[in-house]
């Protein structure tokens, strides 16, 4: 178990290095941020001074070596716009994003899992197609559109819910729905297909031979087994949510890391962007490792090695 975790951590380190490299060079491709940051009437001397101040005067490779060395010390640079360490900016905002992600995941599962079970039980008929339709709707609606429609209906027209910013529980409803909607279909399809497989198995037959009720057969014996592949994809889904939060948080003016990413892009705050992406990668890697460890507890046949 310990060896497994160490092995995974080393793998993660290699992956992070690759992420950092890509992010660094891609960021350089977008042009020189200095032009964007200086006022129009700035002189060539001002420009030179700024380049020096930001450490942009060396070659790209020199900059890269400095960047990586500092990154290993936990220093991912200063945010140009916010004038604070990028890492601090990220961790200031992270709790706000983590406050909606579990709810979005929970909502997607609470709708997607029963929908998938019902679809599997009614394979091929109208209810199956209806469930599939509801699921696909979640994918088909882009979150910026869904978010705006929800704001229009529930905030502007009905006035039931606030249209954005953090606050009490009522502030969470619309962002959570917007963020979770596109995962509903993922859960639904996954559960549907794994339920169809599990329902054919011999142990389900034995459960019926025992004379158990259909309810117990389906929701205990089948579902518990069908949930195993769902857990595997949890890591991926949480990754999706972290990415999806960029749009949702922007629409709802939610001060989380998603909105921070958006800001870093539009203000061409490349140290911040690098930091945000690398830290998100670390977050996703840790969640995946956690899920794999959790997996061993849910499926007693798995022993990590």
């Amino acid at each position: 178990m310990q060896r497994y975790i160490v092995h995974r951590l080393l793998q993660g380190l290699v992956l992070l290095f690759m992420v950092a490299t890509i992010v660094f060079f891609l960021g350089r491709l977008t042009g020189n941020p200095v032009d964007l940051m200086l006022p129009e009437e700035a002189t060539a001397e001002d420009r030179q001074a700024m380049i020096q101040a930001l450490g942009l005067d060396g070659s790209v490779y020199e900059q890269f070596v400095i960047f990586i060395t500092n990154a290993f010390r936990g220093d991912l640079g200063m945010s140009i716009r916010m004038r604070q360490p990028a890492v601090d900016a990220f961790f200031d905002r992270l709790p706000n994003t983590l406050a909606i992600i579990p709810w979005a995941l929970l909502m997607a599962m609470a709708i997607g899992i029963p929908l998938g079970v019902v679809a599997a039980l009614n394979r091929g008929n109208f209810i199956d197609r209806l469930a599939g339709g509801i699921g696909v709707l979640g994918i088909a609606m882009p979150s910026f559109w869904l978010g705006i429609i929800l704001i229009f209906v529930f905030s502007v027209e009905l006035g039931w819910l606030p249209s954005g910013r953090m606050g009490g529980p009522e502030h969470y409803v619309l962002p959570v729905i917007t963020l979770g909607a596109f995962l509903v279909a993922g859960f639904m399809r996954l559960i549907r297909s794994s339920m169809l497989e599990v329902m054919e198995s011999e142990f389900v037959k034995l459960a019926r031979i025992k004379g158990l009720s259909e309810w117990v057969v389906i929701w205990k014996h089948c579902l518990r087994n069908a949930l195993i592949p769902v857990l595997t994809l949890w890591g991926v889904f949480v990754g999706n949510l972290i990415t999806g939060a960029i749009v949702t948080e922007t629409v709802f003016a939610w001060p989380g890391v998603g909105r921070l990413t958006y800001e870093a892009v539009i203000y061409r705050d490349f140290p911040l962007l690098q930091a945000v992406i690398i830290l998100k990668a670390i977050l996703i890697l840790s969640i995946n490792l956690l899920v794999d460890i959790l997996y061993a507890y849910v499926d007693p046949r798995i022993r990590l090695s």
Partner: protein
Amino acid sequence: MTADTILEVRGLRTYFFLRRGVLKAVDGVSFSLRKGEVLGLVGESGCGKSLTALSVMRLLPKGSARTVEGQVVLDGEDILTKSLNEMRTVRGRKISMVLQDPQTSLNPVFTIGNQLREAIVRRFKGSRAELDRESIQALRHVEIAAPEQRIGQFPHQMSGGMKQRVVGAIAISGKPEVLIADEPTTALDVTIQLQYLKLLKRLQRETGMAILFITHDFGVVARMCDRVAVMYAGRIVECGPVRQVFDNPSHPYTQALIASVPKMEGTDGRLRTIEGQPPSLMNLPVGCRFADRCAFADERCREAYPGTYQVGADHTADCWRLAP
């Protein structure tokens, strides 16, 4: 139907309705099982043995398979007319079943104890401690060592033979009157097979339940069964007490089957086989289904299916050569 009959199957037909046509997997099966006896149901793969069992349990694979005709009279009641809810009260309590593959018969994510309690609680409503005690008792009954530890374990922590014992314990924990054993030893090692058969036999003697024992192995029939029914292409072609069927096989298929059982002594070292293939279940001949492979077949055999004729006391066969 005599007074000591516990299960009687009459004219059972279970078909698969496929896009390519109708597959008549069970096509007019009739037999009866008496209280406390072991009836063997033998035949080659694909002859409809397992599907007969699943039809009786009403656990046909969802979708294409359907029982279209027949009666399954269990303890005086036709269970084919029961609702699915009523059927639940019958399963486990009156009729139960052991499946072929112990590796897949137990739910991998629940402990043995959990799966046993589910079955036991149907006849005995008790506290958790009482149910655990009953579970341990049930495991001890199927000769599992250290049952106190076993109830907390998961199926993957046990060997195939042990799992099949657990399946047995689960199947009989509702004290059913009829147990269907569908090739319960096929997936086990040869050395474990014998132990399992002895266990089943012992349980049967102790509980007095009747067993419908499905197998393709005549050796197992000789060891386990009181009577035997031989099935070919969806029908039972011969049925009688084991001794009589072995000594005087009357259907050419039974004769060929018994002749093809390998023997230790007096052979020329060759294995005997039955020439040809069974007919397609989608396109069954009007006459006797064995006619194409039968050395004695004549015109009559190809024109119409023979009736069921008496060979001896309690011994019948479906063959024109027996027609009076």
